[in-house]
């Protein structure tokens, strides 16, 4: 029962690269997923019936099955259709699809929280539909979805660790690699968990600061 973190120092570069890849993977999935979320929220509201039905099924299927199985399906199944993606790319696609399903729901509920009377007030001042959305709906809607969106982002950050299961290179994969070299399971996973925790806290802190700067107007409690 002796602790030895010394050996892990040799792998500092790998850990740093793992962190960068994890953040990159999270960023890709968050941006792509948000785009899916935006278009899905708009189409799910005003698109033709078959499109709405498709979006509904997409959300339910993704939200009610494990992300691990989704990532396996993307990685192992696409090659049978002749589309072979490298692990990191496959993980990016799978996690974007995954995050998109949650983003649609979050964005939709955010738009629903804006009272009709606000839209009417904008219209009565002669503003176009786009101007009403841009200047009246958008900022309060963003504020309303900010807490759930950012906590979903943190769940995504932690969730990217499953990409290691198709050997995509990211932080968790680095951990497994270092463990296989050093056999210091305890130290390696303690360090990996600590890094994820530090990343989580850093993002949470940044989100809190951004939120405070962006949403200054007082609201009724």
């Amino acid at each position, binding site marked *: *029962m002796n*602790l030895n973190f010394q050996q892990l120092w040799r792998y500092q570069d790998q850990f740093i690269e793992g962190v960068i890849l994890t953040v990159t993977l999270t960023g890709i999935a968050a941006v792509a997923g948000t785009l899916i979320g935006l278009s899905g929220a708009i189409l799910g509201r005003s698109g033709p019936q078959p499109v709405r039905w498709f979006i509904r099924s997409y959300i*339910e*299927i993704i*939200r*009610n*099955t*494990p*992300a*691990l*199985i*989704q990532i*396996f*399906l993307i990685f*192992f*199944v696409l090659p*049978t259709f002749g589309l072979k993606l490298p692990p990191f790319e496959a993980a990016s696609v799978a996690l974007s699809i995954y995050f998109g399903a949650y983003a649609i729901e979050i964005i939709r509920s955010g738009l629903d929280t804006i009272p009709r009377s606000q839209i009417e007030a904008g219209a009565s001042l002669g503003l176009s539909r786009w101007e009403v959305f841009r200047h009246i709906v958008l900022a309060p809607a963003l504020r309303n979805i900010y807490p759930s969106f950012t906590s979903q982002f*943190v769940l995504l950050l*932690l*969730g990217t*660790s*499953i990409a*290691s*299961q198709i050997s995509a290179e990211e932080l*968790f994969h680095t*951990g497994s690699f270092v*463990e296989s070299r050093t*056999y*210091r*399971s*305890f*130290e*390696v*996973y*303690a360090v*990996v*968990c600590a890094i*994820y*925790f530090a990343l*989580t*806290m850093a993002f949470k802190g940044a989100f809190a600061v951004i939120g405070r700067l962006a949403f200054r107007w007082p609201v009724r409690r």
Partner: protein
Amino acid sequence: MRIFTTSDLFSLFAALQWTIVLVTLAIALGAPLALALALMRISKIAPLRWIAAAYLQLVQGIPLLGLLMFFYFGVPVFLGIQVPAIVAVGIAFAAYSSAFLGEIWRGGIQAVKQAQWEAASSLGITRWQQFRYVIAPQALRIALPATIGFLVQLIKGTSLASVVGFVELARAGQLASAATFQPLLVYSVVAAIYFAMCFPLTIWSRSLEARLNGAR
């Protein structure tokens, strides 16, 4: 290489019972801890609040996969003992559930109006009795949709136990996929089984939520 047969399907369903065991274990071990954490978070004693808050932040800041690896590979090596897989995995899932449920239940308790505490205390009963008979029933009603929502998250989360070689549904799927070379079929079946478990819960959670919002 061979084809996917009913016996493969059978092995998937056999593995399903381990998924259910994991969920049960996570709830049975995690729920009491979660209740304790929720109560600590609303306690009048500041250090209790801090400890609970730190624990929640910590566990919710670590991937479930990390918890599993740490308790399955890390801790036994550190302690130099053999730990049965089910124990290590059970501890990891209990830690995971306790953090999420603790946060959900704290939210439920705090959503009960302060006046209810005051009204209860005016009856001359102890603080625990106030909680047990007045606050908890109301908090449970408020927190139930999110609790069921977490159950869905937990069922999906048990798939990660496959990573440490635990043969539950996802692992059984991997094995069947490797044996039959039919990943599309096998993983679709696996996904469908998860969906069949989770979707009804999601619907239930949603209808409870709607009823709750309607009642307010």
